[in-house]
């Protein structure tokens, strides 16, 4: 089974040191004991509010932030790597296998480089090609796959719209032939009419190039449409993880349910205010004991304030939830 998983994490934590000195120093746990498997070739969605640790988890998988505790492995069938200890030449090799697509296509592209140079840069830096002609071939090939015209390659980024710029960033991320790509809020900065186009492109690339995508987003409706499997994070913890359809039809965690209810409905007469959440996500430096969600949970009981729930199998294949009361709530149809 583990061979089908490109990324496998067990009790993965990422902490950042805040403040200096003996008394002022504390550790901010951005990601706290997360165990997650990402199936090879899948479109894996990671959802959460700001401060939930979703970006940090993505960066930990890319070795862009150090893993403080736990294990994470990468296995694409060609190489198997232990991400926690990875360094030196093996890390360099990993850089071409795992890539990142950024959120803001306006900030991610250098205004002083032509589109050709932007896309070619990873190849040159990683030394993946032997001649300029070969580089050009690779650039043209990936540009075509990302639906960019060849004449676009000679221009500078300022000449392009948001959607086109995001396609350029995608081409740059994919030119080294990665097997695993983290797309961090990659459509959040785009207009609705363009967003659908970029999402369709990512799905196409997943199918045609066999890339595994980890799609980080705060927008549940976007995730619902693109991902095969969705994990929900809250305050550094994984609270629920399930195949997309299952998660949307039968969420088992009160937080997941609340997130769904909060999406503004297109139906003006649909009033969902009864299920809206009070309060805000607590500060990661001052986390509540017990279940991290108990301060906002309408179903919290005393046990939730003391004991932290573990991720356990819920009803349905591949469905996991971390809540003391999920069975009870399911039986009462409370969610």
């Amino acid at each position, binding site marked *: 089974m583990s061979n089908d998983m490109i990324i496998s994490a067990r009790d993965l934590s990422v902490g950042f040191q805040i403040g200096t000195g003996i008394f002022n120093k504390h550790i901010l746990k951005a990601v706290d004991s997360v165990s997650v498997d990402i199936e090879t070739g899948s479109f894996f969605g990671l959802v959460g509010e700001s401060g939930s640790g979703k970006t940090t988890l993505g960066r930990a998988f890319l070795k862009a932030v150090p893993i403080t505790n736990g294990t994470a492995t990468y296995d694409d069938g060609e190489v198997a790597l232990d991400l926690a200890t990875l360094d030196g030449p093996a890390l360099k090799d990993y850089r071409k296998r795992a890539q990142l697509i950024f959120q803001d296509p306006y900030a991610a592209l250098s205004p002083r480089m032509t589109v050709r140079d932007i896309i070619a840069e990873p190849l040159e830096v990683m030394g993946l090609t032997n001649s300029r002609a070969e580089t050009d071939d690779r650039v043209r090939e990936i540009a075509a796959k990302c639906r960019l015209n060849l004449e676009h390659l000679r221009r500078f980024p300022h000449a392009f719209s948001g959607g086109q710029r995001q396609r350029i960033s995608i081409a740059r991320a994919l030119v080294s032939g990665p097997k695993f790509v983290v797309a961090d809020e990659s459509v959040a900065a785009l207009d609705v009419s*363009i967003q*659908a186009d970029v999402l369709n492109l990512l799905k196409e690339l997943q199918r045609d190039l066999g890339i595994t995508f980890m799609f980080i987003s705060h927008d549940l409706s976007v995730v619902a449409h693109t991902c095969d499997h969705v994990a929900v994070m809250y305050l550094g913890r994984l609270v629920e993880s399930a195949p997309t359809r299952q998660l949307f039809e039968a969420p088992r965690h009160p937080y997941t349910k609340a997130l769904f209810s909060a999406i*503004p409905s297109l139906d003006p007469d649909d009033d969902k205010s009864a299920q809206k959440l009070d309060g805000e996500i607590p500060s990661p430096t001052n986390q509540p004991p017990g279940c991290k969600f108990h301060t906002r949970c309408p179903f919290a009981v005393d046990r939730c304030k003391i004991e932290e729930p573990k991720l356990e199998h819920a009803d349905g294949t591949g469905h996991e939830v971390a809540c003391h009361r999920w069975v009870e709530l399911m039986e009462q149809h409370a969610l």
Partner: protein
Amino acid sequence: MSDLITVQNLTLKFRTDEGLITAVEDVSFRVRKGEVMGLVGESGSGKSVTAKALMHLNAKNAVYTPESKIILHTDEGEVDVLALRKASEMKVVRGGAISMIFQEPMASFAPAISIGKQMIEQLMLHSDMTKAQARTHSIEMLDRVGISDPHKRVDQFAFELSGGMRQRAMIAMALSTQPKLLIADEPTTALDVTIQAQVIDLMKDLVTEFDMGIIFITHDLGVVAQTADYVSVMYLGRLIEKGPVREVIRDPRHPYTQGLIAALPKLDDLESPLTPVPGDIPSPLERPPGCVFNTRCSKIVGDQCMSVLPPDVKVDPVHRVACHIYKEEGQA
């Protein structure tokens, strides 16, 4: 309901090195008391520029055509906003009768001055309150928008508040002068969904309580559906469809509005693929002749789309569409 603000034939161009750029063209609408008007459009559609025009806030290189009229109806009579010249006169529309909430609450508060001091300052400018009265009133407003410990918060700085709190404080500040019209420019875009839902509920309550009019600018049709009574859809500086929110969202008539709704990922249908509106919004430097949407429209009906500006057609008494597909009843 009485009119609060009427915008007639608003055309606004910016003088730039590359020539005159049309940002808003021939836009007319009105907002009445106690009514929320949703102004929808993508980036570059001119919705923010339109909103700024209402407060005469656009940069110095903005040129309004002589036909453009913005009339604010106050208890003291009508104010022709575009005719205001002196800063002292503009006090009426800037923070007096009209207040504005911006998208990024962090950027809208001065970072080195406490929230309370900023609220007190504008209250003293726009009313005859004493400093002590202004402070009491500010605390009341913070309490009203759901900020806990308003006595403590009033002396805090913007960076000490979370995103949701900051936006609430922004709303408290905008409403403390009791404006007649509130312009909210993407007020929930930077917020998380659970916080967005709270802020939307709060704004709905406040319209009823204060009997104001609100112009709610957003690109999110879901947010509009949940907040607005009327919707105006803008594209490339033109108002292409307007009507009551239920009619426009359930039965959109303009191909662009239809495309926007089709492009939206819907939770009740996960199977069907997303349908983007093909192409990109053209640069304002390259406005197409004829209908502004003709470069992306899939329902072109003939040459007139390419050369003739579509007239405003009443598809029913209150629902108007600017598209050649439709003909006024009795004309067809």
